[in-house]
Each structure stands twice: as structure tokens, then as C-alpha cells.
């Protein structure tokens, strides 16, 4: 039996994920969409915390909320005038979007409900940073040096690519 606090926390998190996600894709002001996204990301970070992945939650906040959303905001400011509303959606498009989304929801929801019901949260020790670091740097089984290096190269490439693409000619 969970504590009431954690249930309330869960409900808040789940609701904010749902609400902000819906808002992020339905609002007609792009800057607001970015803000809603930010809240959804925070809520996700909260899920990570609640599942005892503190490091991951921290990364989520730092990279996503702190980095990506800021990028979004800058780019929005660069490409649109504040107060612009995006055009109303054509109903055909909205219907097709809704069909896809609801079909997805139904099919996946059916699978989830029929298969994943009743898996309780097992006990888990909180993961300390040292272990994370060792795993990331190790080369043994279940250790991630190679992907880490690959990610580093990728990020470097992205930096260069971003500069090249966005550079003024």
C-alpha cells in the first residue's frame, strides 16, 4: 500500500503529463506549445525521480528542459512574431490525426491492459553515481564505452553540422 502522498504525487504527475501533452499539440500559439512541452518534460523528470532514477531525472531536466526547450524558444522567437496564431487546422487533417492517434491509443492500450496488468513495483536499490560512471566507462558485458564514444562523436558532428547549416552565407 502506497502512502497517500506518493499517490497524490503520482496523480499530479500523470495528470500534468496528460494535460500538458494535449495542450502542447493543440494550442495555436507556438510559444505556448514550447512552454507546455517544458512542463511535460518536467513531469517526465518527476516520473524518473519517483522511480528512483535520480541521475536520469537530473539529466532530463538539464538536457531536455534546460537545453532543448531553450533552443526551441530561441528558434521560435527567431522564426515567428510573438502573438502569431497558427492557422486553423483543416478538419480533414485533424480527423486523420485523430484517427491515427486514437487508433494508436486503442491498439496499444488494449495490449497494455491485457498484458501488463498487475505488475507491481519491485524493490530496487537506488543507483549511485559511481556505478553509473563505471558502467558508462567499462568495456565488459553490459557496459557502454563504445556507445558513449559514438554519442560523443555524434554530438561533435552535430555541433559542426549545426554551425555549418545555420551559418550565414
Amino acid at each position, binding site marked *: 500500500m502506497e502512502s497517500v502522498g506518493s499517490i497524490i504525487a503520482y496523480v499530479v504527475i500523470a495528470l500534468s503529463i496528460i494535460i500538458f501533452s494535449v495542450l502542447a499539440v493543440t494550442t495555436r500559439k507556438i510559444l505556448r506549445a514550447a512552454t507546455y512541452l517544458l512542463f511535460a518534460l518536467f513531469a517526465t523528470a518527476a516520473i524518473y525521480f519517483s522511480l528512483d532514477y535520480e541521475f536520469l531525472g537530473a539529466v532530463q531536466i538539464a538536457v531536455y528542459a534546460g537545453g532543448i526547450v531553450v533552443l526551441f524558444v530561441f528558434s521560435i522567437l527567431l522564426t515567428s512574431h510573438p502573438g502569431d496564431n497558427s492557422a486553423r487546422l483543416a478538419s480533414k487533417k485533424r480527423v*486523420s*490525426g485523430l*484517427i*491515427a492517434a486514437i*487508433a*494508436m491509443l486503442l*491498439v496499444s492500450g488494449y*495490449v497494455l491492459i491485457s498484458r501488463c496488468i498487475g505488475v507491481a513495483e519491485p524493490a530496487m536499490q537506488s543507483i549511485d553515481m559511481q556505478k553509473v560512471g563505471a558502467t558508462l566507462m567499462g568495456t565488459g558485458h553490459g557496459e557502454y564505452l563504445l556507445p558513449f564514444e559514438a554519442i560523443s562523436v555524434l554530438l561533435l558532428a552535430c555541433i559542426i553540422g549545426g554551425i555549418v547549416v545555420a551559418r550565414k552565407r
Partner: protein
Amino acid sequence: MESTMPVLILAIPLFTFLLLGLLGKFMQRGMAGVIGTSAMGITLVLSYITAFTYFFSGNPLFISAGGDRLQAVIFNTVWLQFTPDQIDAAGQIVKHGLAIKLGFLLDSISAMMLVVITTISFMVHLYSNGYMRDHHGVCEKGFQRFFAYLSLFSFSMLGLVVATNIFQMYIFWELVGASSYLLIGFYYTKPSAVSASKKAFIVTRFADLGFLIGILILSYYTGTFNFTELTSVPVEGLNDVYAVSAGTAEHIRSIFADSKAPLFMGASVMTWALVLIFMGGMGKSAMMPLHIWLPDAMEGPTPVSALIHAATMVVAGVYLVARLFPLFLMQTSALDIVTVVGAVTALYAAMVACAQIDIKRVLAFSTISQIAFMMVSLGVTRIAHTDALGHEVHEGLGYMASMFHLFTHAMFKALLFLGAGALIHAIGSNDYTAMHGLRKYMPVTHWTFLIGCLAIAGIIPFAGFFSKDEILTACFGHSTVWAIWMTLVAGLTAFYMFRLYFLIFWWKEHKVHGEHVPHDQPWTMTLPLIILAAISCVAGFVPFGNLVTWNGHPITGAGFFTNLDNLNWNVAVISLCVAIIGILVAMKMYRKENPLPEKMRSALPRLWDWCHHRFYWDELYMFITHKIIFDRVCKPIAWFDRHVIDGTMDSFATMTNRLSVAIKGLQSGRIQNYVWVYLLGALVLAVVTMLCVL
């Protein structure tokens, strides 16, 4: 006989053609005429020597010990080998493969034709030097070209008559057709000349199709093209010398008869072959129904008409039948066809000639009629028997008569044409309505023309009398019906020729327009007239029965007056009477201006119309070629090609295009669409999987 002379006979005209054709425009016009004429003169001399040697030298190559004339192959080289020679193990040739050879076959008819061709050709060359100039003596434009073409024609015609094999004949047959085309269309700026030349070529080409197929059939069965293998046997002990033999022809016939399929559509294959070959002859010799090109061919310059369309090329058909005569003799059904075609054409052409206004057209139809005489004469020739009048008819009399008539007709018809040319040159029109009463102005032309008319009408002692008499005798020997038919045609001939003569030279006094008074032409034009008139007077005495017979065996003895001795006087009297009646009727109607012709015409309007319009053959042909072949065959085919065949091909392209346009929407480039489709696809797959698994 060494072969340089025959080679030269062919080479000189060819060389002259190339010389004038390639370099003609760099030389003065008159020069071209001189070169052409003198080259032809040399050829004339060489041909005369050759013919004289053949007929009178007594050389064993040319005449056998028994007095039979032989065929000598002077030279013969392979030009195109179709099937290889079959060689046995020892390297000996077992059987010669099929090959076109080019060579020189000297026998009585080719020697005779050499004389005819070179004589007429030389006369025409000479005459053209005057004719192809205007009244101030300035040469016409294209003078060099004209002589080049004449040389080409002479070369081709000489090559045709000396052919050693039927394919060589076909080759030169086509070449004379082409040179005829070029010469008819000499005045190429005149649309009528252009269409006439086209017509001549295409009609004869159509006939040649039959000729070609005939050759193919004949050569398939016999395995050879060579005349010497088809009709002759080699003479013992001499190389390349042959004697015409009925036995060989009989052997050929047996090859056909013994083959697996001797009959085709009821007639024997050999008859088919010969009739198809004869079809080629019909085209060139303007036999009905392939005669329609010849009257139009008169669009060419008149000397050309004299050379090609009166004396030489048009008798090629007769020559062809004569060349293969032993084969025809073996297949009398083919000969019957020759007879019928000839007889019908003779009457038809004679009737039409009575109602023409253009003097050259009259002469053209007269030519058709006279050639038909030769054809009939060949057609009625059979082996020896007794005729209806109780006379012994010699084997091959008709053949001899035919060749005889060919010879005499060439002379007097060339004379008539050249005379007509002189008139046209003087008057500037082809219609007799523009002439009338010219006898005082152009005496030389008048007298020579009269001689020509007498000769063609068959009045003793002019050339036509003898040859026509022999023909009629041969006809009587075969069938009384045809004999009477041909006698009537002979009468008609006399009538229409004298109608022409009187309308040109008598009828009424000539009206002189302005300063231009018609007069005789310069010597280059009158000299040939006089020479040909002289020949027409004496040619009848040439002992053809001795010189030219189908198997080389003389019918009559040698000597100058033998023709008179050998006349069948019964026939001669009949034909003379008929001819004189014809002349008298013509004289009555046309000597002085009188209303009789007009009355006749209004009395028989239908007949006049039909004759005047040549029985509407041209209209019929026009209908067939334009309305049926062009409009009903060619145009639908062209339409079919563009719309059905090409349309199908295009519709493949259009269909592909439509399909890709239809599919193109899927590949819209909009990532959102892709995602949508992808997602739904994945979901469907998921559902399907679930339904299957669960």
C-alpha cells in the same frame, strides 16, 4: 571471232554515257552532240561488221555444215553467283550453281537486233542534233543530258539483245526502263511529261514483277538462267557454240511435267512461268491491258519516241518471246495466250488510232497495233503442217515473219516518227488541226512520210508489204478466224495511216501565220529521213527466211528476190486489196475538206467517243490506282499505322504515365502523410498479429 568488238559495242555507249553524264556540263552543248553521234557511229560500224560476219562469213562458229545458223557465246562472265557450283571429289564441276552472268550471245536475232538498234539509234542521234535546237540553231538546255541518256539507252538496249541469260536480259530490261523513264521525262519542268514518265515506269515495273516471278519459277525448275541451256544443245567440238534444239525445250518441259506439282490452278507450271515472263513482255511492248503508258510516253522528245517507243524498246517483248521461243513452242497454251493478247491489242489499237488528233498518239497506237502483229505472228507459229488454203506452212514461218516485221517496222516507224518530229518542229504543235496542206512547204518530209505510210499500209514493194504478208500467211496457216481478224486490222492500218497522211499534207491549204513559213528542216534532220525512207523501200527484199529462223534452219534459199518468189500470192492479193480499200476510203474522206468525216462521227457518236477516249482505259487505271490503291489501301494503312500501331505503343506510354501520376500522390514528399500511413500500417499489422497469435 575475237571478243574485243562485241565488248566495244557495249562499252562505247556506256563510256559515252559516263563521259557526257559526268563531264557534259563542262563541254559546249554542240560538242556533246558530236561526241554522242560519232560514238554511236562507231558502234554502228562495229555492229554492222559483227552482224555481217555472223550472217555472211560462213565461219563454222556461226553456221553449221548443214547451213543452220548457230548461237555463239562470245564471252560470258559471272556477275553474281547465287548458289555455288557443285563440285565432286575430283574437283570437277558437276553442276553449275545459279548465277547471273553477263555476256554476249551472238545468234541470228541478236545480230539482226544489233543492226536495227544501232541503225535507228544512229539516225536518231543524227536527227537530234537538228531537232534539239530552236529555230536559230541554238541547242536546247539539257542537250548534253539528252545525248547522255540516248547513249545510256543504246547501251542498255544492246545489252538486252545480246543477253546470254534471262537474268541479264532482266537487268538490261530494267535499265532500258529507267532510260526510257529519263527520256520521257526529259522536259522535266512539264508536269505532263513527269507524270507520263512515272506512268511508263510504274506500268512496266508492274509487268516486270510478272517477268521476275516467271524467271524465278523457270530457274527453280531448270536450275539455270542461260538461254543456251534452256533452248539449245552444245555443238560438238566447238566451245561456247550452241544450236537451237527442240529436244532441249522438250527436256525442260519434261522437268516441269515430272515435278511433284506439275499443275497450279489448273494450268501447268511451265505455262504459268511462260505467261508470267510474257507479262513482262506485255508491259514493255504495250500489249493490252498494259498498253496505257505508251501513248503518254509521247510526251518525250520526238526522236526519243522514234528510238525507244517505236523501233527498239517496245519490241523487247517480242524479242523476249522470240528468245524463249522453243519453250513457248513446247507449251502451246502459252502461245495461244500470246495470240489472243496480240490480236485483241492489234484491233483495239487500230480502232483507237482512227480517232486521235495528236499525230504522235496516232503513231503510238499504230506502234502498239504493229507490235501486236508481231506477237500474233509468234503466237500462231506451230510446227510444219498444211494451212487452210492448202499450202504447206513451214515450221516457224510466223517466227520468221515476226522478226521480219520487227525489222521493217523499226525502219518505217522510225521514219514516220522522225517525219512527225520534223512537222512538229516546223509547226510547233502536235495536232493535225494545226497542220493541213503542208505538202508544198515541206516536200522532203512529205515524200518520206508518204513512203512510210505506204510501207506500213503494206503496199508492194515497200518493206511492210512483205513482212505483213508473211504474218498473214502464218495466221492463215494457224487459224482462219485470226487470219481474217488480222487482215481486217491490216486494212484499218492502211486507213488510219492515210487518214493521218491526208490530214497533215492535204485536206485544205495551209494558213501561214505571220512571217513564219513552215519549211524543211536542216540536213541533220532530213538526211535520216531520206536514209530511212530508202531502207523502207528495199528492206522487204532482205531474205529473212534464210537469215532469221527460230531454229537457225533456213526456210528459203538465199538471194535478194527470194522474198518475191516465196510470197503466198493468195494471201498477198487479199492483203493488198484490203490495204488499197483502206487507202481509198481514207482518200475519199480526207483528201479534200468535206463534211464526210463529221457525218461519220455524228452517225456513230458512241464508237467515236470510245475510240477517241481509248476505251477509257486510262480512266479505269486512274480509278484503280487512285481510288482503290491510294485511297482504299495506302491511306488506311498509313492511318492504321499512325493510330492503331503507333497508338498502341503510345498508349503503353500514356498508361504508364497515368499509373505513375496515380501513384505519385503516395510519394507526396510530406512526412506527415508518410507517418500517418506508416503508423496505421503498423497498427493494422499489429492487430493482424494479435488476432493470429491470440
